[in-house]
């Protein structure tokens, strides 16, 4: 085949693939800007004749979506900060601080990655109920705090921290905590950003666990509120699309800003399996 034709076909395939990939998201944005009922006409329009923000305004006034947005933001932020601290410390310890049985412990944790979260979900709910955390934001956050995948991510990266550097600090009389804070943390910063991005996205996008823990609809996170809203407003296509845009945009923005870190995490996770 002619080389230039091949290059053209390659790019044609890439462009068609990109169009199909973006179409649902573009339609979501387009429909969110249509006037009520416009999406339900024949032929279905892809873009509004005259864009309007009326559905966004309704979401924030009559439907009080800001409350759910803030709930999601709060849960996600706290979960991310705690996860970075907890898994950062643990990942470093697994990489650089030897003790008896360390590798067996780490191997056991890695094996448990195949256990579906659902097996522990019912007892975890009962446990949190005993502790008084059901229907609270703390109850929603708890499963994100410690992550076996997060520890793995940090450990793999921390293996590359030079031992000489740590030993030099020890000779200088620094405590292990001080070494972690002043020597190790700056080196681990890139992988901690990766970990933060992962935690943020999984906490922001999560559905099943907040659905189970939160019973009071005023406390719902954004995805749960959205799933609830579609029950009452299934005919209001344009309103629902505005809600979907508001839910998806923060996740997309975080991804676009921290894309490199996020991709590094995916690849680090796949190297050893």
């Amino acid at each position, binding site marked *: 085949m002619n080389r230039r034709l091949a290059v053209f076909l390659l*790019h044609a395939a890439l462009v068609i693939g990109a169009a199909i990939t973006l179409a649902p998201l573009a339609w979501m944005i387009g429909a969110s800007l249509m006037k009520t009922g416009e999406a339900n006409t024949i032929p279905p329009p892809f873009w509004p004749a005259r864009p309007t923000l009326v559905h966004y305004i309704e979401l924030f006034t009559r439907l009080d979506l800001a409350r759910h947005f803030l709930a999601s933001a709060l849960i996600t932020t706290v979960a991310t900060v705690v996860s970075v601290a907890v898994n950062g410390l643990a990942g470093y310890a697994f990489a650089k601080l030897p003790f008896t049985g360390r590798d067996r412990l780490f191997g056991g944790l890695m094996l448990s990655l195949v256990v579906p979260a659902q097996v522990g979900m019912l007892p975890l709910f009962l446990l949190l109920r005993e502790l008084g955390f059901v229907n609270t934001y703390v109850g929603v956050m708890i499963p994100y705090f410690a992550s076996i995948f997060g520890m793995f991510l940090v450990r793999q990266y921390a293996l590359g921290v030079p031992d000489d550097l740590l030993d030099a600090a020890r000779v200088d009389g620094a405590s292990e905590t001080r070494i972690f804070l002043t020597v190790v943390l700056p080196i681990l910063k890139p992988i901690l950003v990766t970990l933060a991005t992962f935690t943020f996205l999984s906490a922001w996008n999560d559905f099943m666990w907040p659905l189970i823990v939160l019973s009071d609809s005023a406390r719902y996170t*954004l995805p749960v509120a959205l799933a609830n809203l579609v029950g009452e407003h299934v005919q209001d296509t344009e309103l629902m699309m505005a809600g979907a845009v508001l839910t998806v945009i923060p996740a997309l923005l975080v991804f676009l800003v921290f894309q490199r870190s996020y991709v590094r995490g995916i690849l680090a996770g*796949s190297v050893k399996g």
Partner: protein
Amino acid sequence: MSARGARIERRKARAAWLFLAPALGLIGLFFVLPVAAGLLLSLTDFDIYAIGAPDTARFVGLKNYAATLTSSLFWQALRNTLYFVLVGGPLSVVVSLGAALLLHARAVRLRSLFRTIYFAPVVTTLVAVAIVWRYLYHPRYGFLNHALGWFGLGPIDWLGDPMWAMPGIILLAVWKNFGYNMLIFVAGLGSIPEELYEAASIDGASAWQRFRNVTLPGLAPVFLFVGVTTMIGYFQLFAEPYVMTQGGPLRSTTSVVLLMYEEGFRWWRMGIASTMAVLLLVITLAGALLQLGLRRGERA
């Protein structure tokens, strides 16, 4: 070892336990303990009365397992889930590989732009895009049927027809997920030595033969990883049917996890729900071991 060396080793071990304490405490209390309790819970008749007074729950042996394994609804949910895993999983992997091959081609311009676009659905909120697709699938006003009309196809009552509802959910899942494995395949393709391709070309291998005899074997470990992780994830199908079909029509999209959720958190039959979760674990493990075994068999 000198006395000083031994002291430093002890100090490191002490610091290790200190640094690990929060993570291990959280995982022990909120993961290991609940999973172990889940196994026990599946052997009890824990129900809505037991939530108020846990001591009324009784040990019933394997009764829940007998009940679940003779329930036609559970078998239907398992069939639906296997349909999703066995059709949706391979389809996702093939699309991921196709996209990766396109991106990996040497002549590609704007590679990182295309990569970002293909990856975007992965980071979107599943519930939100499931709602978007629910409208795209609308039999009358949905954009998908409109687009199919351009080719003289359809209209299809995507989510209203028991035959089409699961394919509809699979299409959404492929669209949402293919970017993830695509990135892993791109990295895998990059790690295949260029010399292998050159040697194959010198031997007169066609493009297809190079793909078949160099690319695919070179990607074998990637396929194993992608196969196992995709399968584990797909067995946990929940939010898509919850939002798009509520498990219908005629239970054709009720997955094992959706059924478990209904039993456990709608009817509060926690013993039965735990049984389903444990069965899901067993099936997932069997699937993972099967893939590992197949791979080992191929290599031998």
